[in-house]
């Protein structure tokens, strides 16, 4: 049973966040969140006897497009605690995703995300939250807001105006540590029979408060074929290539920059799925150690063997790390 939240009480609770309310303003109150397009700025959503004041819809940029509004994801204030939350409403969609010319069936699942939130609890490398049904049984996820940049933005800003070698010895050791934690976190999911489903660099946030990297957005799923975790592994490879390369190393960019190594690159040196990205980064940055480059080459078109699981990838990352940290200390200018 819902507590009775009168308009007067809601006005009192929302006062710190709504400074200019016209006289006689009445809140729209939602306990059924099914039609999320109707829920707008300044509305109240009541879930499990907690009123949330809706602020704005979330946005997400992808594939170079401008930020796309996600109407089912609302930034909101928990009016009982005053904390900012991200509220994810139920949005089912099924579609054919296309990666590198290969189509596969994807779907968005609130149940999956709710289950993973419950599984990860307060694990430091994931977003935190819980799920609650609305009056119609829609599974709404209430997520703690993480303050911080995406890992991709963090790397871009850190490396700005810096040559690769300086970035590599000065900043990459810490980034590698964070990445290893991220892979361990994905291993945790896999060990519990869950995929992340959408592993990409802007789904890792560098938490300003804790300094840890945290995975977000677990609601994607897909009908897997033989290797249930292959697509997550592919995502991890792409993220790692980005971190090592200080960004995507695109064939067009290195041709434009007239880098002499371009003539030495062959098809086998490219990313196995994205043909315009260089995987064999040692050919571009010769200071990259062979043991690190070997890891990258597992994600190249020339790969003879792939990583089947995170354990294999972690073994290689840790082995590389043990030598690299010593070398990085020697090479810091």
């Amino acid at each position, binding site marked *: 049973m819902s507590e009775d939240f009168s308009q007067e009480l809601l006005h009192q609770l929302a006062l710190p966040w709504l400074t200019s309310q016209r006289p006689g303003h009445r809140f729209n109150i939602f306990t059924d969140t099914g039609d999320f397009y109707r829920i707008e700025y300044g509305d109240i959503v009541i879930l499990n006897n907690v009123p949330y004041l809706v602020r704005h819809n979330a946005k997400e940029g992808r594939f170079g497009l401008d930020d796309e509004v996600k109407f089912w994801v609302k930034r909101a204030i928990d009016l009982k605690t005053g904390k900012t939350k991200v509220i994810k409403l139920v949005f089912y969609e099924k579609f054919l995703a296309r990666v*590198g010319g290969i189509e596969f069936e994807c779907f968005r699942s609130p149940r999956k995300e709710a289950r993973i939130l419950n599984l990860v609890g307060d694990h430091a490398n994931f977003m935190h939250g819980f799920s609650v049904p609305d009056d119609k049984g829609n599974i709404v996820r209430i997520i703690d807001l993480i303050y911080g940049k995406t890992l991709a933005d963090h790397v871009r800003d850190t490396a700005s105006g810096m040559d690769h070698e300086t970035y590599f010895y000065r900043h990459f050791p810490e980034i590698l540590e964070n990445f290893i934690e991220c892979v361990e976190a994905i291993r945790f999911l896999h060990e519990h029979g869950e995929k992340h489903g959408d592993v990409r660099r802007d789904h890792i946030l560098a938490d300003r408060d804790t300094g840890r990297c945290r995975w977000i957005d677990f609601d994607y799923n897909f009908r897997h074929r033989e290797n249930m975790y*292959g697509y997550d592994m592919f995502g991890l490879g792409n993220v790692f290539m980005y971190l090592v390369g200080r960004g995507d190393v695109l064939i067009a960019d290195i041709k434009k920059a007239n880098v002499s190594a371009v003539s030495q690159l062959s098809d086998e040196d490219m990313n196995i799925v994205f043909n315009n990205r260089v995987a064999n980064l040692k050919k571009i940055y010769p200071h990259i150690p062979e043991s690190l480059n070997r890891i990258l080459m597992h994600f190249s078109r020339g790969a003879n063997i792939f990583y089947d699981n995170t354990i294999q990838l972690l073994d290689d990352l840790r082995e590389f790390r043990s030598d690299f940290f010593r070398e990085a200390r020697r090479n810091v200018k």
Partner: protein
Amino acid sequence: MKHDINRNILIAADESDNSKRAVQYVANLLGGVKGFKVTVLHVIREPEEDFFPAEAEKEKWYQDYGRKADLMLEEYRRMLVDAGFDSEDVSTRSTVRYCPSMAECILAERDNLEYGTLVVGRKGLTHKEEFLFGSISGKIVRTARNCTIWVVE
């Protein structure tokens, strides 16, 4: 010393052309030869619970898929009988399984029923498809024990 040869053959099949080729291969090779028993197996991969927004959709999916699988298996059974197998030597089986790995599910069926030979079709995946999603026949070849595997292209 003469070894007993297990003459039970399991064909793991789905609705794909490569599966049909695998069935046809066994039909052409062994049709009319006495002493072999063939089972055509179709493992229905139980969709994850997340796949269906509502229970009713799940029920409908199982009904529709089950009907389709029955028709497919009947077609394969007929192909074998038409090629000369005695109808009592050909059986079909479909089973719904939770399959993180389809290869492991198929091999578990083989282990349970003690078939000497497992036949699968090969899809001919590209390098990147194999990387992204894995290969059922590839994994079967790598991990099968105590049986013979025929991979039909």
